[in-house]
């Protein structure tokens, strides 16, 4: 009897062990690894954590390395998906053997943050801020700035322009916008991830969003560009920018959504495939209440995948465009407009 009891006990133990092993096996069954852009990393990490928690057996990991590194990983097939603020170039898409689908997932704004004692609201006209970043307007009391800000006492102080020293999607979006509204900027600097800023003696460079923010904070008379979410988090003052319609607009989720709503998408497909091209740029949005510098950020997904991974990926994307969008605003991102969500859904169906 005793022996029997002992046997049952060990049998129970063994079956429990097997059960535990089996269940860990189920948990570890599917892993989706991604890497890329650092700009959407905070919200991606939240989404992927929540999604992995809700779905047993799927685990999504994301490494924030930078857009360039993400694209490189995607081409080398060392990840299951990647993310990029600058989408992908045609030449890069052609290098991907498993087929590429580019999906806008969330969006952000780039703001101009400044350090001016006692100036609570600063309006910068369309013809002024490109010239500041070209080193042509060098004083805060320049008549062009003063004309747009009646009643604001602007100091006779040198403008120190702070830009990114590392290659970044933020620089890409900002310089593309400046190129779109200023012909001279386009020819002399142009839009790039690490633009060749003019050597005007007024420009200093700092690494990452935090480096730029810290430098602006510590330098009286400084101005620089950072992501809206970051400015919101660090409570930096941001300038009102004049949009295409001539209105001065502050950055925010509504003005950002207005900018994205008018974003034109190409009618064509991505090169060499039947996937719709969702690389739409809001370089100079036309809406009257639109904030001028807004952009999507893209998820890069393979078209041909193993069945179970493809299914998990489609499921994950559906989660991101529905439940996920609800947390955008509080985290300083702009929710995707309804028409874009529909486009993303349709394109995601092609993941097989």
């Amino acid at each position: 009897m005793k022996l029997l009891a002992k046997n049952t006990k060990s049998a129970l133990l063994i079956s429990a062990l097997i059960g535990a092993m089996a269940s860990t096996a189920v948990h570890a069954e599917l892993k989706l690894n991604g890497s890329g852009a650092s700009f959407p990393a905070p919200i991606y990490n939240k989404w992927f954590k929540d999604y992995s928690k809700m779905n047993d057996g799927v685990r999504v990991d994301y490494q924030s390395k930078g857009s360039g590194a993400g694209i490189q990983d995607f081409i080398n097939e060392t990840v299951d998906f990647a993310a990029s603020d600058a989408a992908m170039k045609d030449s890069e898409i052609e290098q991907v053997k498993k087929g590429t689908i580019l999906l806008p997932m969330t969006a952000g704004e780039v703001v101009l943050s400044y350090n001016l004692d006692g100036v609570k609201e600063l309006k910068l006209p369309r013809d002024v801020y490109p010239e500041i970043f070209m080193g042509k307007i060098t004083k805060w009391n320049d008549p062009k700035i003063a004309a747009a800000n009646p009643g604001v006492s602007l100091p006779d102080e040198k403008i120190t322009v702070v830009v990114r020293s590392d290659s970044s999607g933020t620089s890409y979006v900002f310089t593309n916008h400046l190129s779109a509204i200023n012909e001279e900027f386009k020819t002399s600097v142009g839009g790039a991830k690490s633009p060749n800023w003019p050597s005007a003696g007024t420009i200093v460079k700092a690494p990452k969003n935090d480096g730029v923010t810290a430098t602006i904070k510590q330098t009286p008379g400084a101005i620089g560009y950072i992501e809206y979410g970051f400015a919101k988090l660090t409570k930096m003052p941001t300038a009102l920018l004049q949009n295409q319609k001539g209105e001065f607009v502050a950055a925010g989720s509504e003005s950002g959504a207005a900018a994205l709503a008018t974003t034109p998408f190409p009618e064509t497909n991505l090169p060499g495939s039947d996937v719709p091209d969702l690389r739409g740029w809001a370089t100079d949005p036309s809406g009257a209440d639109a904030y001028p510098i807004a952009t999507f950020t893209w998820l890069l997904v393979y078209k041909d995948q193993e069945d179970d991974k493809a299914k998990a990926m489609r499921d994950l994307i559906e989660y991101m465009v529905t439940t996920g969008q609800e947390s955008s605003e509080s985290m300083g991102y702009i929710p995707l407009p309804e028409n874009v969500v529909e486009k993303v859904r349709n394109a995601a169906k092609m993941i097989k």
Partner: protein
Amino acid sequence: MVYDPFKESSSSRTLSAPPSSADYLKDSLFRFFAYFCALSIIILVAYIVIELGIQAYPAMEKHGLGFITGTTWDTNQGIFSVLPEIWGTVYSSLIALFIGGFFGIGIAIFLTQSFVHAKLELTFRTIIELLAAIPSVVYGLWGIYVLIPLLRPVADWLHETMGWFPLFGTELSGPGLAPAALVLAIMILPTVAAISADAFRRIPYRVKEAAYGMGATKWEVILKVMLPTASSGILAGLVLGFGRALGETMALAMLIGNVNEISISLFAPANTLASLLASTFPEAGQLEIQALMYAALVLLAITFIVNVAGLAVQQYTMRKFEGKK
């Protein structure tokens, strides 16, 4: 059995035995281990140089010597050259060496020439060595939030009153050469101070006694006897400190302004090779990575030249002041 005194003395029970085969084995194993350690350092350095060389080769072929003499780093057009970075690296390190060396040697003298009580000496030494344990990022942040605001009024005043002097030729806009070099000086201070203090301590006491005995004052002893005698050790400390300054990355990336310009002014923003590597590497494309590898080789070459030059000066002072050949 015949009594054999030789065998008796070699038995294992006594203390004075010839080495056994196990001893020989231990000895040769240890020697092998020591050789292996020494050799692996050489192999490691050679491997790093070769690996860098292979990765940098395409860029070396493409840019040639123009890489070292040109002043543009433009990813978009694929033009890469690092003269401003070389200038910034050497200039900032030299200023740091000048300031850090002056204070480092001063501290070493203070700590070793019985100016303070032995217990206080130990406290001072510990605090200075603590400086070496502070991470680079912390120095960078301290530089941005504390040093730059402190430096600004001084820099503005110098620029306004002595703007004609090339060193103060520009306004300090925030990050720039001066804050970067000052932070570097603090970072190399512990290295210089610790090694110089050791050099002073190694001087036999009777040297000092003899000098005092001949009627020299304290200052004469320190400046004319101790300092020259310790000079080879002090130089070793300076060379190590300079090497550290050349390769410092994070604090400089945060403080120097990262601008590719060559300016003699202390308040102008500049750039260094290490800072260029740190800020452009993560997102660099293939062509740029090759160019960055080339830049790393250049940095390695500068460090190598500095070390060899340091060694040469050290040997010269040894011959001159210590009578060693």
